[in-house]
């Protein structure tokens, strides 16, 4: 009887001891990992701060102005470029025939890439111009309305009965009815390549 109890306790004590050491080392390993992670986080935070500063430096208005002069030559938006009421916007002329539909797509004012928003005047950071709508109250720049009209044109069935007056239906076979763009970016890419 005595022997059994003693054995039991002995086993228990050694088991507890091993378990304790096991847990202790586990905890140490975790602590080390935590320390490493925290140090890495701090280092990353420092790097982010440096990169933020660098970004601010590289996008300072002076720099953007110089870049604009060199690559884009955008000029400040003129009063006459701003239409503020719907009545000011001229109606889209009715396309004479569906055969022109594809030509129109190609001829439509090529929308500049979204980064080069037309309403960021010369010498103004396009970054901030992109983040904060520059002319929040004015109507969307022509680019957007042109784009909105675009899918409609692309989607239109080749026959387009409501437009077709006398135009031969077969002539539409040639104009590329490009596969539908998945995104706005794709669409712009398509338009750019189709030119």
């Amino acid at each position, binding site marked *: 009887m*005595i022997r059994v109890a003693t054995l039991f306790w002995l086993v228990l004590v050694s088991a507890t001891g091993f378990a304790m050491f096991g847990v202790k080392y586990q905890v*140490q390993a975790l*602590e080390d990992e*935590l*320390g490493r992670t*925290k*140090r890495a*986080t*701090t280092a990353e*935070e*420092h*790097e982010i*701060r*440096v990169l*933020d*500063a*660098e*970004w*601010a*430096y590289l*996008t*300072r*208005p*002076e720099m953007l*102005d110089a870049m604009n002069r060199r690559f884009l030559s955008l000029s*400040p*938006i*003129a*009063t006459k470029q*701003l239409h*503020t009421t719907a009545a000011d916007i001229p109606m889209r002329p009715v396309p004479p025939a569906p055969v022109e539909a594809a030509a129109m797509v190609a001829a439509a004012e090529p929308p500049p890439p979204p980064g080069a928003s037309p*309403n960021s*005047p010369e*010498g*103004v*950071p396009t*970054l*901030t*111009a992109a*983040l*904060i*709508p*520059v*002319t*929040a*109250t*004015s109507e969307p720049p022509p680019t957007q309305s042109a784009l909105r009209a675009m899918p409609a044109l692309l989607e239109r069935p080749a026959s387009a009965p409501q437009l077709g007056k006398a135009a031969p239906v077969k002539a539409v076979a040639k104009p590329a009815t490009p596969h539908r763009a998945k995104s706005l970016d794709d669409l712009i890419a398509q338009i750019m390549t189709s030119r």
Partner: protein
Amino acid sequence: MVAVQPFADNPCRPRHFKPPPCAPVVPEGPARQALETCRSRLFLTSLLFACVFAAVALRIVEVVVLEGGSAQSHMPRFRIPAPPAPARADIVDRNGKLLATTLDTPSVYATPKQILDPADATRKLVKAFPSLKSGDVYAKLTSGKSFVYIKRRLTPREQYEVNQLGIPGVQFQHEERRVYPDGTLTAHVVGYTGIDNSGFAGIERGLDDTLKDRRDPLQLSLDLRIQYVLREELQRVIDDFTAKGAAGLIMDVNTGEVLAMVSLPDFDPNQPGASDPDHPALSFADRMFNRDTLGVYELGSIFKIFTVAMALDYGTSTLASTYDASHPINIGRFTIGDYHGKHRVLSVPEILMYSSNIGAAKMAMAAGGQKQREFLSRLGLLKTPKIEVAEIGSPHYPGKWRDVNVMTIAFGHGISVTPLSFASAAAALVNGGVLRQATLVRQPPGHAPQGQQVLSPKTSEQMRKLMRLVVEHGTGTMAAAPGYVVGGKTGTADKVSGRHYADRKLLSSFVGVFPINDPKYLVLTMVDEPHPNKQSHGYATAGWTVAPATSRTVQRIAPLLGVEPVDESSPEIQRALTVDSLQGKKIEAY
């Protein structure tokens, strides 16, 4: 010693020993006494142990449960570096663009005693930092000291390179440094800090404690894009008219937020002490001087808007009142004449349009000095303005308000104020009569700080019409920006030099508000000592210098600010801006 019944009460008895059913009685005597002593000693000892174990147990509970296990960090092995809080909050503009930030710029130092091969270390270090001289570095490394700086303020790339060298005994000391990515652009507003990162100028000094305490970036009301436009236009005026300096500020008239504040010449806050490579002759003090908030100037004719507003608000004049401006006024040793002289009787709108000194002086005299002083005081022009930057100038004005002072102050001489105070007061004049303190800290959208009603909305409306008239038909026609309905007032003052006015030294200024039919923004520009050029036909007055600059600025910033252009000839605008007393009469007829 005692042999009787050794087990019955012996605490050292084997555990499973069962005492006999009847404990034998220990007879009285020395044996029993010894047992008693033993028992009490045992009791005391066990009590002591119990206390100690209880203390240990309590401490464990305290450490593990009550302190939530935080005690672990006392162990050096587990010390986890707390993320170093940025010593000073960043400063950003109203769109979140970084204006000032704190970066970790380690300094590299050496412990010469630990350097094994100074010659090799020198060679490597000089290769990494070509600016260092190998002789100096070698001398430092062999000096036998325990600490020498090799180079302070490393860039991240330099730090990486030194790490790559892997020289034992060369280490980094972490230091923080304020960096201003936009350089000179916001120099006067943001200011700069000293080597220990305490604010020395601008917001850095004015809000030093706030910046030290807070962690989130401090958002200013400044808009970097507008600041850039204003600075560029002012620089153009300086270049075109070979002027000494210029200042300008753009303010939201309905909130008092300053969107741009430029004072030229300026400095690079990243190296405030360095001289400007383009203009090495400019002194440090001149470039550090904030003309917007610290400089006080006799602003000249733009002050006439206050004279007219005062007369209209007190009712001492109406828009239909007329004053004879055909002859100069002689008072004491002064002669008050007109620059754009018409030599005839002028109505109140004409006095402002043609900027008649004689008319303004007579108008002020009609109201009287007391009213004039009270009105200027109400507009906050007689006290030191308040704003977040540290550099603030106090106005200069006569202690005794004599008649001659009344007359000169009517057209902006004999009183010096900061352009900042002027802008706040002018904003109150057009925004319906509410004076708000100018601020450089962004206000929550849609929230206008509490203001003080300083003049009647009716006077304010009349002033808007009159200021529009100046731009439409008066001295400020070159400030017109088609579509943005600019209203304003020109001012060309002779600068005081010593005790006299220097005739050839001018201070031209223009205050413009757009759109004047529904005032949103005020643009105040000022140029110090402009010289006439060929394009300006020999003029260096406000109408030829800062008025065109205002026009260009407005046309560039209005789309950024979301101000819609309107048709200036539309009936609504015309109706809103027609001066009643002139209705039906042709302006040109005057």
